[in-house]
């Protein structure tokens, strides 16, 4: 009857958020863009690559703090890692009947933890490869080398750095590359998962991560 009233879309507490909070959104997109740029566009070891690596580390740390101190659906306790529940959810997805969860669904939660573990490994191995140099130090070194002072390079490769350290760096490099590729595979799976879930749940899952539904 009362047509003129705005449809009061009352969110029940069991529904996923209509809009993720700004910290979740900022860390999500900041990490997504940084990972894609570092994987596809820039050169490993370049100033941009190292800077973005540090940015990812900062965003990851902030998200970890937010996972403890943040509001309800951003907290780890809202989506504990539970592989059994994840499998159950995937089975429901196949049969087309999915439950609504107040935060990430169990499969999405596993995906989030896998992302964070990979990101942590990639940043730590990256730090090992650069010897923990901050982007400022990398920039200084590059400027020194560019101006003809090669001592910065010699320091890295002279006899002082032991074989052990060299092999550690070598291992770190291998792990860095493998896990970085794994990250890209996870990202592809994540995008596919969002599409499948959105169809099964008949609900736009991208909007809450961008600006939410525009209210008229």
């Amino acid at each position, binding site marked *: *009857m*009362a*047509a*003129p*009233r*705005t449809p*009061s879309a*009352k969110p029940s507490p069991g529904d996923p958020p209509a809009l993720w*909070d*700004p*910290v979740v959104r*900022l*860390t999500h997109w*900041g990490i997504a863009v940084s990972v894609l740029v570092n994987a596809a566009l820039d050169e490993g070891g370049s100033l941009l690559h190292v800077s973005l690596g*540090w*940015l990812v*580390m*900062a*965003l990851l*740390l*902030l998200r970890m*703090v*937010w996972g403890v*101190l*943040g*509001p309800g659906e951003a907290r780890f306790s809202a989506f504990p890692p539970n592989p059994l529940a994840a499998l159950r959810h995937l089975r429901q997805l196949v049969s087309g009947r999915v439950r609504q969860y107040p935060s990430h669904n169990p499969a999405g939660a596993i995906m989030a933890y896998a992302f964070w573990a990979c990101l942590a490994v990639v940043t730590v191995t990256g730090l090992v490869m650069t010897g*923990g140099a*901050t*982007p*400022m*130090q990398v920039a200084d070194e590059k400027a020194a080398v560019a101006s003809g002072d090669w001592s910065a390079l010699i320091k890295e490769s002279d006899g002082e750095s032991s074989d052990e350290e060299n092999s550690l760096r070598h291992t770190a490099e291998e792990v860095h590359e493998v896990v970085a590729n794994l990250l890209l595979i996870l990202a592809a799976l994540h995008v596919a998962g969002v599409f499948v879930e959105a169809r099964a749940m008949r609900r736009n899952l991208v909007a809450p991560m961008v600006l939410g539904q525009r*209210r008229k």
Partner: protein
Amino acid sequence: MSASPDILSAGRRQTAALSVFLVVQTLGTVFFVGDVIGDLREDPTSMHFIFEAVVTAALVLGILFGTFALRRTIELLRAQDQALQVARGALSDVIDRQFQAWALTPAERDVGFLALKGLDVAEIAELRGAAQGTVRAQLTRIYSKAGVSGRAQFAAFFVEDLLGEGVPDSAPQAAQ
């Protein structure tokens, strides 16, 4: 639907700005921590290191407090939004019940709602695809069923309850 989305979007802008600030702060702190760890490897007893370590600890604490404050702000905004939804629902329930009590027809209810929302006769007629004369006649019937003199009293019927009893006492004093 006029004032509330503004409050909400202003709150959203505020929390978004706070979040951006928090990200920048975290970035700076991470660089600082990296620098301090570098110094730690060189000379952990120097004044320079101790000073930097204290500053960095303060930065980390700042982030934790900032995070906590932001969480509180977000939760407060949500609580306000929910209270507003509840109030809105309650008001429209009251209106619904009153319309039923007056035995308005479905068409009259629609017109009544639109009139309460502040639309004039021409706008209501256009929305409902009806002639202005029809709408005017419906409004007249609504007013007579409700026993009010016109639109102002009709709207006041629902606002009156929200105002409480403050008016009769304070109005004469204010007038003098």
